């Protein structure tokens, strides 16, 4: 019984991080229909920003979240302004592929910039409270894991409110449905795209902070996180931003169970197999396709 509760707790903790990662990727993908293959690399960059602020300026990783997110927001805006916005002239079939190719190139650039700046060592942010464990009803939970979970919850909720309750959210949903029609109805589609790309990358930065405190970061360590983002998005269904959170939780729970039953070294393989199965039998996404957002 205790093992079941432990698996559940661990799954929810990991799952909310996965949901956070999926959120950033899904926002860019569902709004602009661009695939950002460098999402995992941006996550690593967020982690490095946190590592830098912690190591050189002695700022607590949780206090460094606002500056990291602001930096990453501007990186995302630059990504849209410099690269993605230029793709809109291409024919539709070529656009998706070109967005993937461009972000391939970006992986090279960012990876090697990170290697030059911080060497290729595996790093993590270790504070005085990193190893602390809280025991709740017989279940042992790491402090940083719980903090990461709450951060993910707060930001997922905030994004949900932003998308459902504000004018900007309405514009995003309109642009998601049909960018041309939205532009005709007077929505500044370019600005909407710019801001949602910025938010997507800022969320990657936040995920980077959480990963730097709970896992580890390295210049080329972005790919597994990218795969997780993709898996979460496919489980949730294309354009289904509001279902990203349950999808992330589900993936986390399945992974936690697979660590217990199959072994930790096959953790990723089990989730990827689950993902291929879902793609084959229900390619439109595991969760019923309700409204696009909200």
């Amino acid at each position, binding site marked *: 019984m205790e093992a079941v509760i432990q698996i559940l707790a661990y799954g929810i903790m990991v799952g909310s991080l996965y949901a956070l990662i999926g959120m950033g990727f899904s926002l860019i993908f569902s709004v602009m229909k661009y695939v950002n293959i460098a999402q995992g690399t941006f996550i690593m960059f967020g982690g490095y920003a946190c590592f830098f602020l912690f190591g050189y300026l002695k700022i607590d990783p949780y206090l460094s979240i606002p500056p990291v997110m602001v930096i990453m927001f501007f990186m995302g805006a630059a990504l849209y302004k410099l690269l993605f916005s230029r793709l809109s002239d291409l024919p539709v*079939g070529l656009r998706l592929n070109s967005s*993937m190719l461009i972000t391939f190139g970006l992986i090279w650039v960012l990876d090697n910039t990170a290697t030059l700046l911080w060497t290729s060592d595996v790093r993590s942010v270790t504070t005085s409270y990193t190893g602390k464990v809280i025991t709740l009803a017989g279940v042992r939970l790491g402090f940083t894991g719980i903090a990461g979970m709450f951060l993910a919850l707060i930001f997922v909720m905030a994004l949900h409110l932003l998308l459902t309750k504000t004018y900007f959210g309405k514009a995003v949903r309109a642009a998601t449905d049909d960018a041309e029609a939205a532009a005709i109805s007077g929505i500044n589609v370019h600005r909407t795209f710019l801001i949602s790309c910025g938010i997507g990358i800022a969320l990657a930065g936040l995920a980077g902070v959480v990963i730097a405190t709970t896992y580890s970061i390295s210049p080329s360590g972005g790919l597994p996180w990218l795969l997780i983002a993709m898996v979460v998005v*496919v489980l949730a269904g294309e354009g289904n931003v509001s279902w990203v959170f349950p999808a992330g939780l589900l993936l986390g729970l399945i992974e936690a169970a697979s660590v217990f039953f199959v072994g930790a070294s096959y953790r990723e393989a089990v989730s990827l197999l689950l993902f291929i199965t879902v793609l084959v039998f229900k390619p439109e996404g595991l969760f019923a396709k309700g409204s696009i957002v909200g």
Partner: protein
Amino acid sequence: MVDWKKWILGGLLSIGFIILPLVFHLHSSIMNLLILMFVYITLAQSFNVIGGMALQFHMGIAAFFGTSAFVTHVLWQQGIPIYLAFLAGTLASMVLSVVIGLPTLRLKGMFFAIGTIALAETMRIVVSNVWPLTIYMPVSVSANFTFPPRYYFALMIAVFACVVIAAIKQSKLGLALVSLGDDQDAAQVSGINLFKYKIIALVISSMLAGLAGGVYCYFRVNINPGYLFVPLWSFEPIVATAIGGMGTLVGPIIGSFILVILSDIFALVLGEAHLIIFGILFILVVLYYPYGIIGSFYKIQILFSRIATGRASAKK
């Protein structure tokens, strides 16, 4: 219509590569680079069939490359002659492609890309968990290792890959693939069996990837099984094809040359920063020459011929 100029040019190029090691005494590092370039040409043509012509973004070539290389290696270790092991490896990756293609090719756009990358990563994790140790060539072979047979073998396979692409481009299959790359719905309405052609393209693509895997296995003295499935083997062929020109015959050759030889020269000249500059150059090529170097060259040619014919008709 057969374009003789192209065939003659290709023949001359391959004869040049055949003569090259006979005339000059090539250093083993140059030999290494050339063999790697041939492997890349084969892989890039493998991506070209499905990703360049049919525009199905295949991100899991590593799965087929690795399967073939690994199967070839295991059989070779058992004492089976290399050419038989090589054929068996290629066959294994073709079988895998049918098994994988039947479900995943129904997916559209990004989902095919994600499905294939997930497949390759799953295989990498499983293989590197089950066989974590480095494997070596049979001792009898590595004792008298020489470059020329490997060089000619790799060259032969690369030429074969290019001939396959040339043949596809002139067949009905090539026409069907290009049309479904342009507009799937329109292709289906015109009576093209999308699924059938996609499966054929995937099988041919994984056959070429399998051949490349066999060559790589024959050429490397030691291999880490997990390394055969790393995303590098999926991504770099895509990059090579995109630089040269998607869906063209010559594009992947030029792209592989740039990727292997030029990036090596870049590394010598620029040191650590060379991949940053290479990445920026690649992004610029994709942004400003979305049809690749060769593709844009053809576009300009067409533009010029249009201007010329426009003037001719204006004179009348």
